[in-house]
């Protein structure tokens, strides 16, 4: 009897088919299609050759213009990530250690801010950072600078934009981890004679390290692919890879080279993440084996 009833039951694995389908259509197909596109020659006017070729890759990986763009993207992402982490860590720490009703309000505001479109936020930034902007006016008024700083339409502008882009995310991520570090650990360290700096270095930082690395990677990945911040605060003059790809598609109508650049971008981001994870695992292994810390 139970046999017949079992026969009517749908195996639970079948419920996984629709998500698989959605994931395939949205994730695998687009990537596969630009990978495929990158292997064709551009014939102009949006047409591509029927034959397959690696020419695009040869061009991208030898032409100093493309390599320069790649290096620029990598460098700006790295700098922006470092600055964002340096700003998010103390902020998250203070938020996690403050016992006030305002903390949850601040976190809620942060969440809302991170949901807002980058276009609006970048616009706000450009009002602040412009030559006639609030920041330059203020700095000139208090006499720190004589000439307005050029903070827009250059690398600096892009870095500031990228930091603004990932900062709320990092603060929230680190906040949730800091909350799990019991304050008694810091008290114990203090009673054992550690100064605040030593407590930070020997207790808080090591415990927050996994989340700092995870957060750093997330921020770096977002920065590498950031288009809006880069194009709005770089004024179209800072040609990071995403900006370049957009230009290749919409201005030059060169789909194969754009697809090739996109593939290279994804490959580099992937390789960077893989390398970080491997290095981490290696370090943890040596630490576990009791090799000098």
């Amino acid at each position, binding site marked *: 009897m139970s046999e017949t009833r079992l026969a009517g039951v749908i195996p639970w694995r079948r419920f996984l088919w629709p998500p698989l389908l959605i994931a395939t259509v949205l994730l695998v197909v687009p990537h596969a299609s630009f990978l495929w596109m990158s292997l064709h020659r551009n014939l102009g006017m949006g047409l591509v050759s029927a034959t397959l070729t690696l020419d695009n890759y040869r061009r991208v990986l030898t032409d100093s213009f493309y390599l320069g763009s790649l290096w620029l993207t990598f460098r700006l992402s790295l700098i922006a990530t470092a600055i964002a982490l340096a700003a998010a860590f103390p902020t998250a720490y203070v938020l996690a250690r403050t016992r006030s009703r305002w903390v949850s309000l601040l976190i809620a505001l942060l969440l809302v801010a991170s949901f807002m479109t980058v276009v609006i936020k970048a616009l706000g930034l450009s009002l602040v950072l412009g030559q006639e902007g609030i920041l330059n006016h203020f700095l000139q008024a208090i006499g720190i600078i004589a000439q307005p700083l050029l903070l827009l339409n250059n690398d600096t502008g892009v870095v500031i934009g990228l930091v603004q882009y990932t900062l709320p995310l990092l603060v929230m991520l680190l906040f949730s981890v800091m909350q799990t570090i019991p304050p008694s650990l810091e008290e114990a360290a203090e009673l*054992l004679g550690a100064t605040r700096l*030593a407590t930070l270095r020997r207790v808080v930082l*090591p415990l927050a390290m996994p989340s700092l690395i995870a957060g750093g990677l997330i921020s770096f990945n977002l920065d590498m692919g950031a288009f809006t911040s880069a194009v709005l605060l770089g004024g179209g003059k800072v040609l990071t890879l995403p900006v370049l790809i957009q230009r290749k598609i919409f201005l030059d109508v060169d789909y194969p080279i754009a697809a090739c650049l996109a593939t290279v971008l994804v490959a580099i981001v992937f390789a960077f993440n893989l390398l970080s994870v491997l290095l981490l695992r290696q370090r943890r292994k040596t630490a576990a084996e009791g090799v000098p810390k």
Partner: protein
Amino acid sequence: MASVVLERVCKFYGRQTAVENVSVAISEGEFVVLLGPSGCGKTTTLRMIAGLVEASSGTIRIGGADITRLPARNRNIGMVFQDYALFPHLDVAGNVGFGLRERGGDRVTIGRRVNQLLSLVRLAAFERRYPSELSGGQQQRVALARALACSPAVLLMDEPLGALDLKLREAMQVELQRLQRELCITTIFVTHDQNEAMALADRIAVMNEGHIEQIGTPEEIYRRPSSEFVATFVGKINFLDGTVQEMSEARCIVALGGGSFVSAACSTDCRPGNPVRLGIRPENFVLSPARNGGAPGPCGIIEQRRYFGNIVHYLVRGAGGQLLLVEQAAGSSVLDVGAQVAIGWREEDAVVFPGVRA
């Protein structure tokens, strides 16, 4: 090793008083337990001694030196936290050696000291384990070894055994007492468990609502509680309400409900007509089969009996109507439910408290 002296120490949080005028002098090598219900200020007091909470007023001295405003890291205090607060990213040796490294010793000296401490707490082979790989009792020992590592002047413990099961807790109590005697270290221990306090303490300070109700040896606290709070918080006690009938020198005759009279020691404001309350521990009652027309002492009827093997608990309904808990050695004769009994006690076993005027 050093003495610890608190002089009128207070802690206010805004308008709220957490600790009020706590004064206590703890001598070198003494084991003092701060005992009280949750929220009585015992942990706050401990944290003020540690320097983790700043005292609002008053003075704290260790070894004669005023340390009230000294940062925690300079107080040379070892502390065991309720949650142990072991560093999860460091192994046992790293945890125990944390303070030693902070004080800048060389590797070999630190290693030797760590081994010495680990054998002291009987965890010699565990240096390379991480806290997550240890049982609760082992974590407790690591926390203790870490607290003792820098040879602190004072050892503070905040409900350190609370998370352990009963058997382990008792074993740790024995261990702790052994260590404390061996090292002769001044120890202040916070707990809400009266049995633990009795088992460990040289002296107990019973705290309630931010102040110390009574300080004394476990025996003093149990036999001569200075207030009804102490009497009820430490051990079980029965209260009999009555009125002072007559008095002579140090004794008085008290009329209890149900027309019985007993004699008792005089408390300070014993005057004929004043209400008094007699506190009697369950084991201090003596039950005997009732004699009709005998002495005018209290009597009652056994309502319930619980037999534990070594002892028997009786719930006795007194003539005045109140229910009394009586504990007797089991022996050979066990009284039956429904039996009429005369209830007696030795005069010195009754603690006299001022009564409540009706």
